[in-house]
């Protein structure tokens, strides 16, 4: 089980360790890497998804998404951050490494994504040079990589 999207930053930093400007939505995107079909994702949506009792109680919810939804840099699997928690979950959740997350956000390029990456760069929690290097290895069409490259370059001059 892999956490992608903004919430994956919590695999590296505690809530207190993050700048207040690095806000996230209340949705955590989960990918089931070994799944052959959508069933585990659909189960997540039913049990702890949007509008569920879990959502009401905790103020966060999970969304089962397909691996193909995220544009990621080559080699991301080697860099995932793994927790070995025994309390709440049966499986060890894994999280995208923070520079891979940033590169993925720059590929999307939505305003909120750029604000999120910017907040982490400004707080010194991301190395812009590493983000730029990861962007070069994004597994995406040339146009997407080019757009992400331009956004990454803008962060290096901050």
């Amino acid at each position, binding site marked *: 089980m892999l956490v992608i999207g903004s919430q994956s930053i919590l695999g590296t930093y505690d*809530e207190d360790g993050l700048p207040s400007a690095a806000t996230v*939505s209340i949705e955590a995107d989960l990918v089931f890497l070994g799944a052959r079909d959508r069933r585990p994702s659909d189960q997540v*949506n039913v049990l702890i998804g949007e509008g*569920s*009792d879990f959502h009401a109680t905790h*103020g966060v919810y999970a969304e089962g998404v*397909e691996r193909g*939804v995220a544009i990621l840099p080559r080699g991301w699997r080697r860099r995932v951050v793994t927790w070995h928690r025994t309390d709440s979950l049966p499986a060890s959740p894994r999280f995208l490494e923070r520079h891979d997350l940033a590169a993925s956000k720059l590929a999307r390029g939505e*305003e909120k994504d750029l604000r999120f990456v910017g907040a982490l760069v400004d707080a010194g929690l991301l190395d812009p040079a590493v983000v730029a290097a990861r962007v070069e290895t994004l597994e995406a069409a040339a146009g997407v990589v080019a757009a992400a490259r331009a956004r990454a370059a803008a962060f290096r001059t901050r």
Partner: protein
Amino acid sequence: MDELLTTGQVAARLGCTRQHVVDLCERGDLPFVKVGTHRRIRARDLPRTLTDDQRRSLWYHHAVAGALVADPAEVLGRARDNLESWLAKPSNRATPWLEEWQRILDEGVESVLDVMTSPTQRAADLRQSTPFAGVLARDERERVLQQWTDLRRSA
């Protein structure tokens, strides 16, 4: 900072004529601001092609909208209680979204319905941090999700 687009840029993104964009502005279908004599439109106010999970969320919110129009006080009250409770949690990192929802709830039912059902980027982002949890009965919610799953499968 919000990206501001010209009517020509909007036309290019929507795949229509600039005149159509002007018409949408004049009809009140597209929010705009005036910079001198020129209309400028915020990128996040444009309708956009939604991702699969955004479409599922829109589907769910249509069901919630049904509950809302049947009993606005109950549904809005539930949403307000959720927001208050979540904002108070030390683990909360979604304050701007949750506070935006508080403002929308204060604007009344029509504003809420608009955000629940609008295809704009802004509305999709707000739905992603929806306060409408625990509004539908468990079996009703599961039926709604099942309908979406079936719909997606047959598409």
